[in-house]
Every structure is written in C-alpha cells, then in structure tokens.
C-alpha cells in the first residue's frame, strides 16, 4: 500500500519536474540594466581629459521606468560608471549641444545595437534542487533540512547578457578620433549563495566596460 502511494507520488513529482523544467526553458524574462560600480576605482593613470557622454539611444525598451526616460537613465548610469572609474579629470553628461567644451574634452558616444539581459530557470536545477532538499531532510532528520537546502542554493537560474555596439570618442570639435567595438556575451549561473545575481552581473558589466574604455583610450592616445 505504502509502496504504491510512494510510486504514485514519485511519478507525479517527476511529471512536475519535467513540466516545470520545460516551462523554465522558455521562461526568459528581461531584467533591469544597471552599470554601476560598487565602489570607485583607484586609478593610477588618470587622463588629463574632461569626458562628456552623449545621450544614448537604446535599440529597445529594457528597463522598468517609462520608455521615454530610458535613454536618459541609462546615460546617467554610464556617467556614474565612468565617474567611478576615475579615469578622467571630470565626467559630465552632454545634455545640450550649446554646452561650451574645454579643448581637452573627449566626447563619448555609446552606440548599442543590442542591449539584452535575461533570466532563465535552468531545466536541470529543479531536479537537483529537489535532491538537495531530500538530502538536507535526510541528513538532519528534521525540517531544519530546509535550512540546508536554502544554504545549498535550491532551484537556480541562468543569467544571460548580450551587449553589442560601438564606443566612439570625439574631440571637442565633434570629430571622430577613436572607435572600439562593444561585444559582450556572457551566460552564468546564479545561486542563492551569491545573495543576488545582480552582483555577478554587475561585476561582468564592469569588466566589460572597463576593458572597452581602456581599449578606446589606448587608441585615443595613439592618435
């Protein structure tokens, strides 16, 4: 009797695992784009340049704020990111073309052809999570096993980043002086142990933008 009930529930459980797994494969959702560095960088080679960022024109809506404000908000995030890299004498946003620029200015234009971030529930993680839950429960023989399950991470997700475009540098007379490609695709697992996957995403974005910026500045200096 007990054996047949167990078999029945295990089949039902397996069915749920399969259904949720399949559903998870198609459950990509867009997440908020955030370029910030957690703490300002200590830059050793600060350039004698005043950076001005042009307002970006994003290819598609990808933020939780009104669509008309997305470009301004992302520009501000890029501005804060650049400010915290400590690579320039000063960093500003170029809100108006009437702004008088000093001669040692560098105008930065972020041209994104793609700017995507998605979350996906990994199909295999749900069954692994259930096994983890079972082990946790078995090891402790109490419901404190749930605590272990939480500590191990439980069902988890995959985070995808896909940025492509160009970073272009102009001089104070709006002449193009350097150009570098933004091409960054990454996929990584996030876990409850990380507390929040946005931390991991943030580190990836920071690495990507710093290397892109440094490549651009090398071109600028070699002009």
């Amino acid at each position, binding site marked *: 009797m007990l054996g047949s009930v167990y078999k029945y529930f295990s089949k039902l459980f397996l069915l749920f695992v399969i259904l949720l797994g399949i559903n998870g494969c198609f459950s990509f959702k867009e997440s908020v784009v*955030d370029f*910030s560095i*957690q703490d300002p960088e200590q830059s050793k080679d600060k350039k004698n340049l005043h950076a001005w960022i042009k*307002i970006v024109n994003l290819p598609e809506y990808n933020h*939780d*704020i*009104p669509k*008309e*404000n997305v*470009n*301004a*908000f992302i520009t*501000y*995030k890029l501005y*804060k990111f650049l400010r915290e890299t400590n690579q320039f004498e000063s960093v*500003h946003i170029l*809100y*108006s073309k*009437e*702004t*008088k620029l000093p001669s040692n200015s560098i105008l930065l234009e972020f041209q994104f052809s793609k700017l995507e971030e998605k979350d996906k529930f990994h199909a295999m993680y749900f069954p692994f999570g259930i096994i983890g839950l079972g082990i946790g429960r078995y090891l402790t023989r109490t419901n*404190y096993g749930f*605590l272990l399950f*939480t500590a191990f991470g439980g069902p988890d997700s995959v985070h995808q980043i896909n940025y492509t475009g160009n970073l272009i540098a102009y001089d104070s007379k709006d002449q193009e002086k350097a150009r570098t490609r933004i091409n960054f695709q990454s996929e990584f697992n996030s876990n409850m142990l*990380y*507390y*929040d996957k*946005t*931390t991991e*995403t*943030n580190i990836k974005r920071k690495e990507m933008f710093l290397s892109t910026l440094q490549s651009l500045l090398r071109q600028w200096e070699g002009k």
Partner: protein
Amino acid sequence: MRLILIILLLQCAIIPKGNPLLTFEKKENLTPTNATVFVILNQEAYSNGLKGKSDFNYYHILDQVRNSGLFPNLTNDLNQAEQIIEIEIQTRRTHNSILPFITVFTLSLVPYFQGIEIKENFLLRKKTGEILYSANRIQNRNYWFGFFFFVNGLIQLTKETDHNRFGFENEIIERMNQNVLDELILKGIK
C-alpha cells in the same frame, strides 16, 4: 520569563546614528520656477557589500518633486527640458546573514539586527551644465527586529515584487528628499 519579556520589549528598536536632519522653516510665498524640468533618479542598493534591490522608485521621487510646488513644469522628455534634477540615492545595509534564520527558528526570541546607511545627492543643473543647486544628505539607522520581523517578513514574502521587507528605507529616503526640497524652497534657486 522576565528575560523573554525584556527581549520582546526590545523587539523593534530603531536607533538613529549620526546627525539628524536639519529642520527648515516653511516659506509662505512660494515662487515656482517657470523652467521645464526633467528628473533623473539613479538608485543603488547594497546588502552586506553585495548588489541588491531597492523598492524606492522613480514615481515616489517624481510625486515628491511635483508636490513641492516648486517645479510645476515637469517633463518626461529630456529634449524639452531646460533644467535637470539629478538624484543619486545609495542604500547600504549590513546584517548577519545567519541571524534571520536564528530569529525565525527561535520564534523571534533572538532579535534580528540590521544597520542601514542611506546617502542622497541632489543636483539641479541647467542643460548646459551650470549647477543651480546641490545638496547631500546622509542617514544612518540601526534596527533590531524580533516578532515584528517574523510577522512582517512572512507577510512580505507573499508579495513577489516587494524587495524591501520593512518599508523603512522608503520612509527615510522620502524624509531626506523632502528635507532637500524644503531647503531649496527656503533658499530659492539661484
């Protein structure tokens, strides 16, 4: 029993740290600016040094700025704007990551502790870059939660979109922002 009662009494202590916000007199004759203003909010939240989320959003700030009466011409279009309000808010929380479990499993007998630091930078500038007004605010709080944490945490867990479990963060940010606006109203825009 006495010890339990004392602990339960200390369940929801909020201890402010650092300087309190200055109070500004309310100006009777408010002169609103005629300029069209665009508001940018950049918000960051960290929990134990890791990137987190904050529930405070753009609409709260927009409502506060609009209700101040100083900026009647708010716009959603950056091209139309003559002036820009840039607001940066950074929240840093610190807590012991094991303590919430202990609080829950001891049914709040061991209270949960959390420290919170919120910084706000407020800047009003012309589109050409000239700064018209700038202000900074910083607030620190230490929170001790017990039964309140337990009940409120469980209620909030049912709300999928609510990342801010206690709502205190919103309250502090709103107060800081109102304080900046009060100062701006009193001093006036250059």
